[in-house]
Each structure stands twice: as structure tokens, then as C-alpha cells.
């Protein structure tokens, strides 16, 4: 694996020399060959959905819940942190326990500002040789700048921009991948390891963004098309685009950065306190700790909740939430749930109303849609935690 060492890239970013034209991902022509409709996303042309018998957002969504889908998520930033006490240094920027993360284990975490605002959400893995980070595509340049600014010079930050990332998600993902890459079925949720497929080194993580069992596979750009072909050659696998990825993650109650999370939100309001490792709430020593502890104590004023709407009309991001005459919050993600057959939404609403079972109304085109606060995930997670 080779990578670009971050000092070069940060210089570029500081020059505001970030390319404005859309980038192409290593599987660009592969997507087009499979009939993908490409749209701009996170600075790249990406597949929103595919054509054909199994194509379309709902069909791709349902196939993921029933069988297995292949998503190209190569827009995401794959970074590594190495050097003296890398985990210790990283803990100064993340509210989770990283030093105690055993080799092969992963953890969901957050990059926070001093004020406790969320810069990004990310996956942190101890690969044994380094700490690997997978960050959101749209945030990766800012994340890199933030990390480089705060990490000591002795710490090397590497961006694996020559690595693609595939997500194989669904109840049949494990059988499919085991047939191609023996040993992967033994991984459990939130663990990962190095494998080889047909001469290509892979880093395979049992994780994902759909609520289903599945894997994320990091592979060099030179091998990704071959691997993509091998995976969709299995009749249990169809490609799925960003559209299905969004409806699946919404059903799974997983927030999307830039919509459900941003600099104005904090881990407590975002209902992500599980990412605030208990011990580190006490010991502190990370950027944003003071703000987070004070927010934990006062509870904040708003909370990210799930809403189930009556009827069939969906409410979208930006719709206001009301109780009587009072506006109590706003929808941050919303849509029609293909699995459940009714519209669902995530919203930040006033703490006073953020209790399960509470009735609210969402305003859509001058109509008030009745809705109820419900627990998330909307559709139960089906992660594999071992037999």
C-alpha cells in the first residue's frame, strides 16, 4: 500500500487549491457499464441508482435487506495515523478510547471542536500496525487539515487515496464473501483483518451503514474492478447506489453528516453519547471535553429523535416540527421507508417533547402531518456478533 503523506495535501488545501471539478472514482466506468445514473456527491460523480431488472432505489433497498448489495464508497477518506504514541495522540482529538482498542477492533467516534460541535463522524480501527480512520468523503479534506493541525509533527498522517472502498451489505453478504475470501465469515461486527484475494491484499471490516450484516473492503484501485466483477458475478449480489444507501441508513437510524450532524450539533443532542467512552468523560484530555461534559450535565435543549409519520406523504430535511402553536424543531432527514411502507424522519426537537410516544406535527407544504416520536433504529439492526 502506498499513500500520499499529508503534508503535501495540507499545503494544497491551505492554498484553497481543492479541485472544483468533479472527481471520478476508480469504478466510474464499471458503474456506467452496469447502467448507473451518476450524480455529483462529495465532489465525485457517483452512482445514485442502477438500471435494469434489479435497479431503482426501492429494488436496490429491498435487495439489500433480503440478499446482498455491493456499494462503492470509495469517496470516503481512508487515513492512517502512525508514529510514537499514535493512539495516545489521537485520543486528544476523539472522545473514545483508542489506546485500549485491541488489534482488529473498530470503534465509531467523532471529531469535535473545542465547543463540542461535530466536525465529522468516523470509524477508527486498530489494524495492529497503525490506527486507521475512515471519514466522510465530503469532510475528508477538512478532517485532514484538522488532524494535521492538532497532531504533533512526529505523527505521520497518510491518506490512502489509491485505495478503493467497497461495502457488501445484506444477510447473504457473509456467505458470498466467505466463498471468495475464506476466513472473512469469522469476523464479528466491528472487527476487521487483513486478507488476500487472488493476489490482491484486502482489509476487510465487518461493519457498514445499512443496519444489515456486511463488510467494508478496502482494496487497491488496481484491483477493485476485478473484485467488483467477482462480487456481482454471484447471483446473490446486485450493485446498489447512493439512493438505497440513504434510505437504508435512515431506517437503521444512522445519522448522515451534513444533514443530521454538523458543527452546530453536539454528541449529546445528536444522541450519540455511546461514542463518549465513559472513562474518558472522567479523564478528559480531548478537544471538546469541557463542552461535552457540561452538555451531559445539563442535557442540552434539543435531541435527535426518530419520527413515524401517519399517512404516506414524506417530510423532508428542513420541515418544521410543531406541537400546537409552538415550533419545537426541524427534520434533518426524511423519506419514505421501503421496508416499513410508511414515511419516517429524523429530527432535532425540544427535549421536553423528545419522549417516545409523544405526538407532534410536521409542516409540509402548509399541511400539518401527524407524527409520533419512536425509537431508532426504525428497522432493527441485524449485525453478526458471533454465534
Amino acid at each position, binding site marked *: 500500500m502506498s499513500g500520499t503523506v499529508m503534508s503535501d495535501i495540507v499545503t494544497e488545501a491551505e492554498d484553497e487549491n481543492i479541485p472544483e471539478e468533479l472527481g471520478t472514482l476508480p469504478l466510474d466506468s464499471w458503474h456506467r457499464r452496469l447502467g448507473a445514473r451518476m450524480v455529483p456527491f462529495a465532489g465525485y460523480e457517483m452512482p*445514485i*441508482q442502477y438500471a435494469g431488472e434489479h435497479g*431503482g*432505489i*426501492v*429494488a436496490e*433497498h429491498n435487495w439489500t435487506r433480503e440478499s446482498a448489495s455491493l456499494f462503492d464508497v470509495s469517496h470516503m477518506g481512508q487515513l492512517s495515523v502512525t508514529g510514537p504514541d499514535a493512539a495516545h495522540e489521537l485520543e486528544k482529538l476523539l472522545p473514545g478510547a483508542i489506546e485500549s482498542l485491541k488489534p482488529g477492533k473498530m470503534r465509531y467516534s467523532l471529531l469535535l471542536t473545542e465547543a463540542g460541535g461535530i466536525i465529522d463522524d468516523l470509524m477508527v480501527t486498530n489494524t495492529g500496525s497503525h490506527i486507521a480512520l475512515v471519514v466522510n468523503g465530503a469532510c475528508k479534506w477538512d478532517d485532514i487539515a484538522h488532524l494535521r493541525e492538532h497532531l504533533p509533527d512526529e505523527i505521520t498522517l497518510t491518506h490512502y487515496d489509491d485505495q478503493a472502498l467497497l461495502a457488501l451489505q445484506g444477510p447473504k453478504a457473509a456467505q458470498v464473501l466467505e466463498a471468495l475470501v475464506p476466513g472473512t465469515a469469522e469476523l464479528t461486527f466491528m472487527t476487521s483483518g487483513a486478507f488476500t484475494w487472488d493476489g490482491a491484499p484486502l482489509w476487510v471490516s465487518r461493519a457498514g451503514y445499512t443496519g444489515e450484516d456486511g463488510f467494508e473492503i478496502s482494496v487497491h484501485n488496481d484491483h477493485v474492478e476485478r473484485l467488483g466483477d467477482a462480487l456481482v458475478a454471484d447471483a446473490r449480489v446486485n450493485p446498489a447506489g447512493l*439512493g438505497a444507501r*440513504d*434510505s437504508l441508513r435512515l431506517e437503521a437510524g444512522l445519522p448522515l453528516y451534513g444533514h443530521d450532524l454538523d458543527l452546530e450539533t453536539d454528541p449529546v443532542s445528536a444522541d450519540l453519547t455511546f461514542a463518549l467512552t465513559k472513562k474518558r468523560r472522567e479523564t478528559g484530555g480531548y478537544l471538546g471535553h469541557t463542552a461535552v461534559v457540561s452538555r451531559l450535565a445539563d442535557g442540552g435543549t434539543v435531541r435527535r429523535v426518530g419520527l413515524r409519520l401517519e399517512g*404516506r*406523504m*414524506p417530510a*423532508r430535511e428542513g420541515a418544521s416540527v410543531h406541537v400546537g402553536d409552538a415550533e419545537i424543531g426541524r427534520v434533518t432527514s426524511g*423519506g*419514505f421507508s*421501503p421496508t416499513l411502507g410508511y*414515511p419516517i424522519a429524523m429530527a432535532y426537537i425540544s427535549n421536553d417533547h423528545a419522549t417516545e410516544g409523544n405526538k407532534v406535527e410536521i409542516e409540509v*407544504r402548509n399541511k400539518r402531518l401527524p407524527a409520533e416520536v419512536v425509537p431508532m433504529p426504525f428497522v432493527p439492526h441485524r449485525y453478526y456478533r458471533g454465534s
Partner: protein
Amino acid sequence: MARYFTDEHEWIDLEGDLATVGITDYAQEQLGDIVFVELPEVGSNVEKGGEAAVVESVKAASDVYAPITGEVMEANSALEEDPALVNTSPEEEGWFFRITVSDKSELEGLMDAKAYKAFCDEL
């Protein structure tokens, strides 16, 4: 019965003074899976170019504009139960609403099937 098409990808069937309006196969293909259609109320008046309906796909909401001015006489209630009719039968069973035609001159300049096909081929 004459069928007209607009550059907003709607079709209009004219039968006497009554026009049936829907969206074209091209439009439904672009919108993707349709999960909800908000139709105008019967008895309401719509103006050419004004908002008449909203189509919700899994991903987003899209406005449908009235291709002509008139009074809404009927809305397709089948779409309440089965909005996917717009995907499966956009130019037949998936019609949206019927309106009176108040000014036939508004139909001038609309495309016929052949012209509309050529229009889509260039997109």
C-alpha cells in the same frame, strides 16, 4: 382524442372540453420509485404554469405544473392507494387529474408524440 406533450414532461389527453393530465414515461423514469402523489383538490382552479401536484419519490419531492388553466374536475384516487402506478403505467392508469379547458389557445405550441420523442432524444 388528441394527446399533447409539454417540455415539462407532462401529457394531456383532450376530450371535448376536458383534459386528462399525467407525467410521461420519461418523467417517471427520471423520478424513480414514486411513493406518494399529492393531487389538487377537486373544484380548485389551477393556472397554466402554476403548481398543481407534487410527486414524491424515495429521494425527493418534485412539483408538477399545470400545463393549462382550468378547474379540477377529478383527481386519480387510485394513486392514493398505489402511487407506483405512475411508474408502472405513467401514460394510462397513472394519470393525475382531469381539468376543464378554459382557453384552447393554451394548447398551441405543445408537442405531439413524435415531436416529444425527438425532444427527449436530445436531452
